[in-house]
């Protein structure tokens, strides 16, 4: 068991290191605006996200762990000139019974978002619902038919305004912690118990019977961020197993540290915590708590793919 955990931990660390090398190349630049002899030099600082990713698939045998994918979940960290983008998508596993690979849709959705951010202009980031909508419709233009469904949560830190633009559909979510307190938390969107809002492309025979929500039903928000803020973006594997106070404690421990390795360590510990708790049969997890609210006598954690994206804002 230990060796397996060890292997996965090291894999998640490796993915974090990969992240480190790619994000350190786009360092926080201090650009000095040109001056005449009479004006003073003004310095505009560009904000940057020091980010890390960690996670475990639900099942080691069938779940894939690759760049951008953990089991049926997919994640994206992208830094471009005008913005930093974090995104997760949780593929709905129920499609496996219909012969559809659930990880295909979530990965394709995030790849689509990545391609659009590469060509879109900075002002389009101000409306993340449109970005999600375009990415979703772009899936229809793929020559290879893509089917399945997933939730999605996208965070965009715009460099010019220091604002974080968010859009969320489904039960993945984010948490923003500042000086030991939660300042922003996303809301889960569910139709009924364990059935989140989801973007879907059902295979031809199942158009009527599958649940499919429009990108317009996603909830969006925007707020300014400060130096030292800690942002956690994760799929429901984390929020269903680890209670919010525990997450808050972990993130506060990180403080405003901007060291890549510290961020990676915290991400790893949160992922490991969620993993351990999910397989604990006698623990009153948030998932079990909510099930009881619906009248279902459940106990224990919820085994699920765990994806943790952790970032500190550095201005």
């Amino acid at each position: 068991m230990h060796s397996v955990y060890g292997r996965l931990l090291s894999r998640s660390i490796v993915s974090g290191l990969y992240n480190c090398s790619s994000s350190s190349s786009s360092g926080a630049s201090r650009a000095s605006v040109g001056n005449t002899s009479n004006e003073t030099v003004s310095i505009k600082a560009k904000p940057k996200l020091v980010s890390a990713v960690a996670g475990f698939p639900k099942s080691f045998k069938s779940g894939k762990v690759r760049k951008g994918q953990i089991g049926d979940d997919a994640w994206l960290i992208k830094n471009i000139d005008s913005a930093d983008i974090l995104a997760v998508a949780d593929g709905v596993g129920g499609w496996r019974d219909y012969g559809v690979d659930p990880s295909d849709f979530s990965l394709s959705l995030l790849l689509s978002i990545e391609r659009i951010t590469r060509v879109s202009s900075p002002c389009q980031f101000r409306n993340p619902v449109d970005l999600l909508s375009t990415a979703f419709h772009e899936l229809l233009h793929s020559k290879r038919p893509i089917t399945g469904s997933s939730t999605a949560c996208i965070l965009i830190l715009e460099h010019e305004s220091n604002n974080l633009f968010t859009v969320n559909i489904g039960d993945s979510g984010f948490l923003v912690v500042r000086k030991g307190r939660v300042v922003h938390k996303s809301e889960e969107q569910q139709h009924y118990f364990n059935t989140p809002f989801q973007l879907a492309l059902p295979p031809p025979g199942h158009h009527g019977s599958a649940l499919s929500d429009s990108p317009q039903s996603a909830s969006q928000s925007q707020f300014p961020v400060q130096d030292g803020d800690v942002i956690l973006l994760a799929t429901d594997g984390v929020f269903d197993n680890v209670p919010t106070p525990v997450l808050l404690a972990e993130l506060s421990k990180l403080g405003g540290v901007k060291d890549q390795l510290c961020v990676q360590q915290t991400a790893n510990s949160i992922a490991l915590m969620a993993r351990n708790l999910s397989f604990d049969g006698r623990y009153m997890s948030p998932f079990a708590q909510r099930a009881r609210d619906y009248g279902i006598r459940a106990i224990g954690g919820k085994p699920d793919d765990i994806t943790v994206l952790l970032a500190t804002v550095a201005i």
Partner: protein
Amino acid sequence: MLGNSEGLNFIEQYASKVTYYTSQYGSVNGVSYTANNLIGPPSRFPAYGDFPETYVPRAYGHWWKDSFVISSCKGRTDGLITGQDFVDIQFKKPVYPYCVNVYETYNSGCVRRLWAGDGQGNWKLFHENPIKKSQKHSQIFSSDPHHLQFLTSIIRVEIDSSLADYYPEIDAVLLVGTETCPPFEESLKLSVTGLYTKITELGLHRLVPGFNAIESIQRLCFKYQVPETSTICYLNKLPEEVLRIILAFLDLHSLCSLACVSTFFNKISKDSVLFTSVNLKPYWYCVKLSSLEWLVARSQCLQYLDMSWCGNYGKLSSADFSWFIKQYGKRLRILRLENCTFLNNEVLYWISTSCPCLQELNLRGCRDLESNAFWHLGKLHMMERLILDSTQIELPTLLVSLQSMTSLSQLSLGACQNLALSGSLDEIVRWLNRYRPGIISLDLWRSGHLSNHGMEFLVGLGHLRELDIGWCGLPPNGNWISLLANHCRSLEKLFLTAARTVKDTDLIAIAQFCSSLKQLDLLGNSYITSEGCCRQNTKSMPEAAVT
């Protein structure tokens, strides 16, 4: 900035903007397979494969030329064969071009010509490549380096995919040039005496014993001297009708050269009968108002005019063309104006009033033509073939215009964005079923969705020989494809790209009923198995080409 060479600074630039393109495979608002993917450095090169981050033109192969509709009306044969598509790419800094690299990632080898343009409509041919079969590896198509003394800000990449097996895909274009004009190269041509002087100077005449420099030079220079002939021209004696038949085989360029030979040939080459069909597309780069003025003297019998690609970037104005068509359109039967940017409301008005006999109108790719202009089409009662791909036509305008076209046999509405947005396909198909059930060719590629009602009407068009419903969302349930095959048995071309609902049973139906099928496109359908395809191939379907 690259290295220095003879004091010149070479600058490498990737594309900064796409100013014009003839067609693209992707949809107008999307990012997959669209022309804007050419901007910036290559995204996927040197990988080889079908990637959505590249530019792909809409057509490939010989399908389009083989369409029975197009082949039934050919113009005069012309020496210079143009490609099917082009893309105009703008670079940030205008330079004197030295070399252009085109990064191809799929079916390489389809770049035919590279043109250097200054943005005001003046073009110079930068590089020409003979057509060859497409290759299965990614490559940088690189023009022969030579320094052009022409300040270039736009490069036109002309693509000819007629020998390609599948779509060619281009990832990026790199322009290498200098900001300063290269020095003028001295001509190396010498006269005979100059050559002799140079040989004796270098002492070459002493290399071989017994070598006589003057004799060898004379032999070399006068090797191809034409023997003396009499000055009587027997061609003059031929009757004019016979001469006209001979001259009808000449292309436009040669005909113009012939006019310079003598007054007799000048007169004969101006004969209007020789100008019943004029194709100016191969000469797009030099067509301007004076070309139309030249044509005026010869256009009494003009019946077929192809001015596709001409007059862009302000070389021809709408007033110029309107003036021309007002006077010489009365006998015009076929008018092709693909990708002409000078078209507007006024031009279409004059076309519709001055060309009452018009049977074919091709306005493919005229994206800037405002939707109001199409109201004038209603006056063209004799119209048989209407091609409006990639235009801004709207549903009400279309239906009103089609009302008067009683002998309509071909309708092309591919990639019409306004139709796609307003969900009009059902209505169009319903109208066609009711009023023009004899329609032979229908192209609705990427123009919207078809519901069950729409499919019901489509199936009723029993005379269809060509049908393209690729990338139209078809209804998920129902046996529509099988029904279509059953009722439209004379289908020769059927494109069901990304219909997503094609099943093996549909394939069996197609194989069983459509015995004259020549082209079938089934890309993007996940429910068909190779078994179904094999079974279909063994049925009697000669000349079928399947993708």
